[in-house]
């Protein structure tokens, strides 16, 4: 059994999250996954951008840095290339990752750099008080959509898949054991791995949309979820409004970025050798 406390900076408690927020539950799953994979605290980096979810690394006892909103993947890319022996994880929000950082997400997935990204999708900009995000379901109420949202969200896992991400999975805070398992698989995967975790923000999303208590929000996640296996036999109409959970992509046909980079370096050195 993982002792989660071993990975927490006790002097940084209490954390900033509201009661009933999904962030703490996911942080726990992430720690248990890290422990199960046998990563060491000294050799693990956790990089974040800005948001409630970006506060993961305040309390987690790894090599941590909180950078700029949306840019965690760029910082992580530079860091990982210079510290390829370290295990590098990124915790990010739906706004951070799929909104302001969307372009970085596409290209980091495309490069297939060996990072593990956990995107906490609470469907809202939590930290700034409940403005709608690119993941907010249509129609919803948000602090910047007081009558109704007027934009559709998109499937971020499909985006990562299309960009070339070699490990893509989805879970929810309700399915927390699955979440842990998928994060474990993602950490073990060589290449870009992405786990979207549907979470609840009772304060800034649930309340405005009359979704009840955090418990009710979790039950809603349960109700809406179908497994990848179940989804195979369902029509697009039947899948409308459903959360497909499980492993969506698991490819091993592409080398991780640092290996491809080293292949290029070998070519460069050989070419230089020819010239000499």
């Amino acid at each position, binding site marked *: 059994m993982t002792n989660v406390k071993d990975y927490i900076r006790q002097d940084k408690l209490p954390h900033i999250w509201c009661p009933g927020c999904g962030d703490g539950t996911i942080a726990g799953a992430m720690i248990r996954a890290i422990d199960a994979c046998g990563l060491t605290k000294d050799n693990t980096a956790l990089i974040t951008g800005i948001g409630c979810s970006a506060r993961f690394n305040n309390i987690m006892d790894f*090599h*941590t840095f*909180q950078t700029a909103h949306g840019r965690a993947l760029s910082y992580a890319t530079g860091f990982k290339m210079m510290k390829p022996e370290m295990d590098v994880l990124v915790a990010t929000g739906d706004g951070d990752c799929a909104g302001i950082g969307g372009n970085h997400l596409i290209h980091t997935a495309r490069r297939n750099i060996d990072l593990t990204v956990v995107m906490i999708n609470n469907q809202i900009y939590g930290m700034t008080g409940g403005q709608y995000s690119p993941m907010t379901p249509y129609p919803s109420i948000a602090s910047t959509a007081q009558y109704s949202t007027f934009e559709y969200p998109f499937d971020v896992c499909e985006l990562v898949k299309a960009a070339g991400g070699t490990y893509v999975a989805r879970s929810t805070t309700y399915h927390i054991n699955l979440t842990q398992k998928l994060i474990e698989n993602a950490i073990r995967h060589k290449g870009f791995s992405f786990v979207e975790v549907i979470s609840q923000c009772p304060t800034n999303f649930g309340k405005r949309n009359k979704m009840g208590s955090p418990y009710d929000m979790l039950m809603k996640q349960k109700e809406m979820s179908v497994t990848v296996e179940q989804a195979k036999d369902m029509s697009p109409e039947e899948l409308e409004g459903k959360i497909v959970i499980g492993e969506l992509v698991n490819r091993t046909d592409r080398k991780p970025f640092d290996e491809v980079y080293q292949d290029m370096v070998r070519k460069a050195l050989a070419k230089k050798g020819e010239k000499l």
Partner: protein
Amino acid sequence: MSNTTVRFMQGNEALVEGALVAGARFFAGYPITPASEITEGMSARLPLVGGVFLQMEDEIASMGAAIGASMAGAKCLTATSGPGFSLKQEGIGIASMMEIPVVIVDVMRGGPASGMSTLPSQMDVMQARWGCHGDHPIIVLSPATVTECYELAIKAFNLAELIRQPVIILSDAIVGHLRERIELPDPSTVKIINRKMTDKPPEEYAPFEAGEDDVPFFAERGTAYRYHMCSNVHTEKGFPADTNNAVAAKLITRLHRKLDNYADEITCYKFFGAEDYDVLITAYGCVTRAARDAAKALNAEGRKVGVLQLQSLWPFPKAVVAEYAAKARKVLMPEINLGQLIDQVRLATDRPVEGLNRCDGAEIRPEQIIEKVREM
């Protein structure tokens, strides 16, 4: 025995040489004229010396990757021009606040906006100072020759590491693209500065606890030194304290004091012309070249003209300008913009300061300066 190599090189190429000698082992960039030769040069050279070159999806990501690599301990370079320089501002602020060494080159072209992509300007000199938000310190160096591209690249890395601070090199389309003779010293004779490392044990280490020079100590990542850094106002341990007035005041004043402490190391300038000058021309970047030629011609006709070339632009070398201007009757500040750094010169002296400006994408020519000085 030290060996000097004589080469015929472009400014952008010399900058690459300087960066590599200084120890740059990471580059992240995005193509843009007139800076692409730096990006291309690094792409060809870094893989051969155990370094990493990345072409990122944009300049924001380039800055992020460079800062991330520097957080891992590497010396990092990124290069761009006007439109890309605007996108790099976010990262410049982050690097100032998180005290991450990184060198940013802006090969200035005509602006605003897409402006004149192949033509020179000096229109980013105020942006280099204040382009990103907040009260941040910044160091800006500006070369006028191919040799200075090499020398100031080394100096930029040394200052970045010494002061744990982003350093901007403001080059321009003329200096970046012109070719001239350069004597490259034996790299083993070049003075290289690396960031200072902590000697405290991990339990006692605080990433933002500064030494007497107000500069904090670095600790290797991937070791028992597990520490946090954030871009909010933070404690010495690196954790957010963004509602604490005392912590904010202490941190932000220290960030600026670091540069004050190293003012002598940062400040650099050159003087050319008549020692007993009547008119002083203050110049930087490519305009220095025209100013020198103009002064030579004017001095040959019996006028007494001196040229003060500012190589460090920010922090503005006010004391140096004040001292030199005091000996002149009048000061002339030619710039390829509508008058940006001239305000700083005016603040430094009570001598009359006149501008000579253009914004049409053409260089300032010696004849223009000669004509202007004759009127002064």
